[in-house]
């Protein structure tokens, strides 16, 4: 499991916050006021006075026609027809259910328009009904004023409702944002707990596979490594060399200097060997003073050279050992390169162990590989 990325989490959180802020800003600046005004500003709006205003203008169109009609009533049939049409239109635009239902003066005004119409239709030099006209005009004023107020009230109510909706939308967005943050937090927590658990598991596994004294892998790890190796072997793309080494006369060293000094010697030797190992090499403590190295990707000559460097590096430690023929602590090394055939774990250990044995038999402090004859060793 990869370690959770703090940068990625931070970017996600920032993006979420930016989206949240922008949504809130947009919601609170773009409002619905303009849409509402557009609805209520239509020419034929429900609460408009547009129809009554039209009616009023048709009625007023009649007035300039009255003087010539009264002065020369018999010669002006065209004017009379026009006046009658204007009165009919004035009637039509006032004869609307909405006005009739809401304003009592409308039905009276309609009757008065009819009365005016009759007077015009009769012809002759009759006095115009200015009182009736005045009452109709008053009715128009009432309608226009009330319709305007009605419209303003409706807009105001709609705006209040809109703002209320806006408030609840804000609340909704904040709740969604809070839930998103909570979800993000829980996921992050779960991710981090998972990561911690995985790290701890690996640490425990590592401890179980590591030799406490020398910090090399232990024998259990060696078996696991060799099991993996033989399961994938033969692998023509790779070369594998096994190096088995043992500290010479280590029992006598312990007997002479004690186990604490023996442990120090083990640590020094493995540290010196570790310093030589390339990255693709595993170092195991086989048991006691015996150590095992699995080397990947190097040729036979390179592995033998590594073994000889190990030999020299241990000598260079110059650890005094009175029971050794050289006077210092030394190691014997066996080297075995895997062939392109199948192996068992035991066979591999046995192969390299035999070579180490040869090195021991031929005086110790030396490297023996399968291509060097025992006599030469």
């Amino acid at each position: 499991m990869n370690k959770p990325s703090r940068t990625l989490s931070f970017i996600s959180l920032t993006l979420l916050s930016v989206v949240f802020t922008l949504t809130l800003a947009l919601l609170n600046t773009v409002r619905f006021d303009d849409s509402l005004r557009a609805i209520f500003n239509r020419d034929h709006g429900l609460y408009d006075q547009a129809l009554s205003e039209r009616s009023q203008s048709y009625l007023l169109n009649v007035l300039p026609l009255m003087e010539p009609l009264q002065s020369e009533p018999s010669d002006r049939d065209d004017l009379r027809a026009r006046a009658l049409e204007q009165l009919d239109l004035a009637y039509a635009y006032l004869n609307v259910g909405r006005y009739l239902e809401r304003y009592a003066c409308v039905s009276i005004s309609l009757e008065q328009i009819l009365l005016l119409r009759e007077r015009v239709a009769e012809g002759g030099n009759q006095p115009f009904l200015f009182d009736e006209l005045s009452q109709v005009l008053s009715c128009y004023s009432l309608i226009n004023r009330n319709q305007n107020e009605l419209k303003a009230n409706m807009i105001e109510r709609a705006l209040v409702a809109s703002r209320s909706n806006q408030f609840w939308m804000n609340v909704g967005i904040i709740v969604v944002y809070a839930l998103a943050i909570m979800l993000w937090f829980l996921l992050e927590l779960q991710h981090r707990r998972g990561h911690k658990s995985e790290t701890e598991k690996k640490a425990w596994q590592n401890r179980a596979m590591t030799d406490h004294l020398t910090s090399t892998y232990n024998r259990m790890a060696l078996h696991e490594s060799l099991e993996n190796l033989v399961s994938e072997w033969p692998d023509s793309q790779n070369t594998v060399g096994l190096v088995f080494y043992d500290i010479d006369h280590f029992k006598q060293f312990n007997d002479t200097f004690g186990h604490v000094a023996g442990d120090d010697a083990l640590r020094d030797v493995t540290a010196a060997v570790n310093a030589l190992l390339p990255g693709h090499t595993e170092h195991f403590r086989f048991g006691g003073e015996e150590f095992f190295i699995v080397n990947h990707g190097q040729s036979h000559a390179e592995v033998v050279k590594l073994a000889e460097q190990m030999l020299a590096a241990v000598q260079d430690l110059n650890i005094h050992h009175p029971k050794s023929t050289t006077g210092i602590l030394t190691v014997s090394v066996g080297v075995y390169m895997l062939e392109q055939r199948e192996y068992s774990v035991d066979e591999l250990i046995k192969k390299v162990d035999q070579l180490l044995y040869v090195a021991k038999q031929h005086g110790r402090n030396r490297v023996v590989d399968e291509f060097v004859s025992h006599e030469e060793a």
Partner: protein
Amino acid sequence: MKAIVVFCCIGLMALSSHVFALTLVNGKQQVDISTSQLLADANVSHEMYAPFRRQNVLFEGYMLSDFLQQALGAQVTAARFIAIDGYDLSLQNIDERSLMLVVKENGEALTIRNHGPLRLIETDLGGRDPKNISLFDDWVWMIKQIEVVDE
């Protein structure tokens, strides 16, 4: 054949009376129809809530598309409606909409004072609130002329 005879009669009656309620124009073709003809031949009735009356009303008249088909002999998809007071409205896809030309309301012939003599209404309110008259912009009162226009 019957329809042709009826429209021939209508034409003759219109010429004799010289009082035309409606003029139909399709390019160079022009058909004048009198109020009495319109009232006599009304063939559709429909009862519904009338937004401008604020009550249920029985309308009588013609389905617009059929009416234009019969009068002009052509399928009309777009038309311009001109009212007596100069109001002017063009509508598209009229053959696909439930538009009705009304000549009578609750059995009474429409006059100018009752938004006649010919009125265009929609018989299908399509879920609109009938109390909100601002939603009925396509209703045309006092129609005096219908012109066929290119869509």
